[in-house]
């Protein structure tokens, strides 16, 4: 629980009316110290010497001294700041990706990702804002938190969540053994040998480490941005997935209705994991299986942050295309005219007038034309500051990863304790922490699980 602390917190914020500038905001005792570590000022003046409410141009650099972004730093010193603590704002220019990198640098230099509403809470507690102001802000945060929680829960469905749940269960099992040996020493229980327990912790440690390190394999990143490829049958959706992922994963045939189950592929666009989902073509289904496929496609349209609608440009628009266009939220969507290598019979200008220039791309999935342009459009959408969904999601990713890094360090400690033959309560201390931390991700927290587990597992009561 990170309630009121004076440790230094950071978060990505945006300032209304100034799109394309992401702000990393730090507040707390070490705000200046931390930003000092990653910022090189153009005029060479250290941040701590800057006057309150002044700005400085410069660069943010990473551990390897490479430039991450060109930024403007502004400093507001305690107590005359929003939170009444030292605040440093780093205004980034490189869009969401650079902003994210800057925030990560702050975190690796000792800041903590803020809890929802923590800036406001600090401001309020330190007497900076009054109740009505605070309430208004908290209402917004509240709404946003619930939204994020929903997203978080949706995101970690599937593989990663299963894996974490399993690891958590295993930690519980291990804790049950350790705790039983402490609190029920008078019972003659058959506790698993210490070495076995150590081995089991090792396995959990390895698996979680893999989850964190193996981003490329697409484990952790199951919670990336979802892009659903939708459209009526045979327009080239599967071909597009193959083109964009440079794999031949989806089956392509000339028969309409080929794809029945959705296929996912993860591609990194500027370091952000993006999940492309090839869906079944939407039409009046001929049988049950297809019906299910179509139903799922409609669900994907709902769930995806970015639906990509594929339209066959070599044939005239028909009522199925139009139905899909109606179903999709065009504020979020991108429209692809495919098969432009053969013919282009659709009047694009009509479309452009209707839906705006920005959301239309002409491509040939087969020949690989326009794919880069499509990617560019997706990146632009991800960087758009109005899209809270996407920004939250990126932050949630970081939060999860950060928790898992902490879990790993706890597991490491407990392995060390077990190796050194320290008694059960020592490894247990770290394992409990790890266990609770994983619960923060999977959304489970139950108080008496260990004690209940002991009673379930062992015959207690001599």
């Amino acid at each position, binding site marked *: 629980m990170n309630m009121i*602390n004076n440790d230094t917190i950071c978060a990505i914020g945006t300032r209304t009316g100034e799109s394309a500038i992401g702000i990393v905001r730090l507040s707390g005792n070490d705000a200046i110290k931390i930003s000092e570590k990653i910022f090189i000022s153009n005029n060479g003046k250290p941040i701590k010497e800057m006057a309150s409410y002044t700005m400085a141009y410069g660069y943010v650099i990473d551990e390897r001294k490479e430039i991450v972004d060109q930024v403007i730093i502004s400093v507001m010193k305690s107590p005359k700041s929003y939170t009444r603590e030292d605040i440093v704002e780093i205004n980034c220019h490189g869009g969401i990706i650079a902003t994210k990198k800057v925030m990560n640098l702050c975190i690796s230099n000792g800041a903590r990702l803020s809890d929802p509403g923590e800036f406001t809470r600090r401001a309020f507690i330190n007497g900076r804002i009054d109740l009505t102001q605070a*309430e208004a802000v908290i209402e917004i945060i509240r709404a946003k938190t619930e939204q994020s929680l929903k997203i978080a829960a949706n995101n970690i469905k599937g593989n990663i969540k299963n894996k974490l749940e399993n690891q958590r269960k295993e930690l519980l099992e291990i804790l049950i053994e350790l705790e039983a040996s402490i*609190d029920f020493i008078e019972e003659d229980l058959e506790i698993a040998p210490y070495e076995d327990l150590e081995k089991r912790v090792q396995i959990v440690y390895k698996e979680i480490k893999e989850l964190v390190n193996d981003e490329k394999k697409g484990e952790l990143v199951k919670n990336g941005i979802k892009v659903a490829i939708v459209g009526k049958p045979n327009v080239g959706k599967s071909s597009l997935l193959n083109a964009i992922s440079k794999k031949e994963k989806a089956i392509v045939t000339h028969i309409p209705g080929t794809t029945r189950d959705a296929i996912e592929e993860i591609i990194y666009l500027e370091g952000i994991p993006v999940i492309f989902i090839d869906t079944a073509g939407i039409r009046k289904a001929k049988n049950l299986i297809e019906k299910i496929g179509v139903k799922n496609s409609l669900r994907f349209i709902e769930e995806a942050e970015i639906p990509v609608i594929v339209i066959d440009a070599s044939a005239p628009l028909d009522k199925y295309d139009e139905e899909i266009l109606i179903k999709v939220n065009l504020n979020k969507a991108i429209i692809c005219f495919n098969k432009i290598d053969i013919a282009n019979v659709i009047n694009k200008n009509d479309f452009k007038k209707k839906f705006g220039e920005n959301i239309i791309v002409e491509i040939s999935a087969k020949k690989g034309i326009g794919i880069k342009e499509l990617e560019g459009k997706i990146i632009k959408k991800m960087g758009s500051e109005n899209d809270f969904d996407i920004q939250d999601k990126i932050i949630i990713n970081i939060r999860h990863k950060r928790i898992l890094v902490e879990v790993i360090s706890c597991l490491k400690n407990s392995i060390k304790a077990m190796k050194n033959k*320290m008694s*059960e309560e*020592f490894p247990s201390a770290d394992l409990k922490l790890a266990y609770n931390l994983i619960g923060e991700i999977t959304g489970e927290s139950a*108080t008496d699980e260990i004690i209940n587990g002991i009673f379930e597992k062992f015959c207690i009561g*001599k």
Partner: protein
Amino acid sequence: MKIDAFDVIVIGAGHAGCEASLACARLGFKTLVLTINLDKVALMPCNPAIGGVGKTQLVLELDAMGGQMGKTANEAAIQVRMLNRSKGPAVRALRAQIDKKGYESAMKRTLENTENLTLRQGTVDRILVDNGRIQGVSIESGVTFYSESVIVAAGTFLRGRIILGSSEYHAGRMGEYPSMYLTDSILKAGLVMDRFQTATPPRIDKRTIDFSKMAVQPGEDIPASFSFWNSDKIFPNIPSYLTYTNDKTHELIRNNISLSPIKSGMVTTHGPRHCPSIDRKVINYENKSRHPVFIEPEGKYSNESYLQGLTTSMPAFFQQLIVNTVVGLENARIMRPGYAVEYDYLLPNQLKHSLECKTVANLFFAGQVNGTSGYEEAAAQGFIAGVNTALKLSGKEPLILKRSNSYIGVLIDDLINKELSEPYRMYTSRSEYRLSLRPENADLRLSFFGYSAGLLKEEQYSKVLDKNLQIENLLHDLSKKVINANDETNKYLAKLGSSPVENSTTIYKLLQRPEIKFSALVKTFPDILGISISDSKVLEQVETYIKYKGYIDRELIGIKKLENVENIAIDINFDYFKINGITFEAREKLSRIKPETLGQASRIAGISPADISILMVAIKQG
């Protein structure tokens, strides 16, 4: 008819009632203890033992603040053992077999000789409440006693119902009258109660046991004490014995399981999972071929022997058959059968952390009547209720222990925030700060509270301060004292299987190595240390601190975080339905539990961090 007026009336003279009344009387308040039977003061109706893992911590904490249990246990212990000896100091725990009669008479003597304390036999039928405040009680003979406050420590007596085989009858404990009317009066005051159940094994005649067929389980002849204010001593050592049930036992029970009150439906309420009956064990663990049976002495001068592990409320004749299947008990004779007792308990979430009722002023509840199990748990609550009654009557702030400073804090916080599904028992795993809340530092953690309340004398408290100072000085010295990297040193280290030092190093650093023991080091290098430490307890503390500093520091960080929210108080009349933005479920829960601090609110199941943020804003508004 107003015949007598007291400051405090304590209902019950069990472990909670004794501590509660002693605390009040010692703090100068005129205290009346009413008990159903004056011959049963501080009775141990179940196992003849005090202490054990988690429980010793409670006894020592109580003792550190001026409670009685530890001192009386020292008088009556007839065998002690150190549990978890191979583990770290935080989970090591003394456990003692107790001479039951000795304990009772020592405690009764203490009560009888305490100024301001009146012991009287009487069954309380009614609590008198007027205008949301307690006024006194009346007993079965019609006499009314008036008082400023009342502490209910009625144990299992409220509508107690004993189950033994197919018979059942009302009783507080076997052979004792129940308290049949008090519950109604408590309900009338607007409080809610529920029922729990607990059970005890048969006692057998020592002379009929064949000890030659069993393993002897002697105690340890180690200097020990349950009290910081008594010096360590070697206790008597009357052994326990260990035998096992067998296939015959299990078959007998299985074939006659219909006789078990669990099966017959005579017992439906929840009992404690930590002491299931033998019938339940046989049902639940079909594959276990034997269960241990410990034979524990009930007293110095008694032949009664307690059969730990054979708890049951099957019919008495059948209990005899069960007992005789066990090796060494073939000819054993039951002196009194085991039985189950079902009783009313107060849902403890109606209490504040001071153990005062949220809705009836100056009415306190403590002990088993709050849904706990165990003498130590009861005594701890009795003490807190007693001290807080006294503090309230003096117009002072209550003594609220925290999760971060004591197991007693954990106990009370859990009682108030958790939904109990069985009688609550302390385990060390219930504490988030187990490595810091060690038995041997209870005095350092808590004696301040006993001293401020007025229960510890000046010289007692200064003894603790002195110990604390010694610890700090020694820690400081050790980080300065350097040991040279010569042959002598390295030979010594090699002998202990420790790696040699290349440069001169501080003793502090050396002690960080797990294999280096302080006591041995002091012996080998008396000159280098150049410090004379008379108190081995100081050495222990210092060694623990140095060896486990990393762990202890991490707990401290957790404690600091917790304390920030713990210090934000919430008004008891706070209207949760007035605040927007938190879920209906959360509002309802908060309104019911009425947390006293924001920290407590955050521990209530179903309350999210977002709820807490909003709540914090609303609280600050006042």
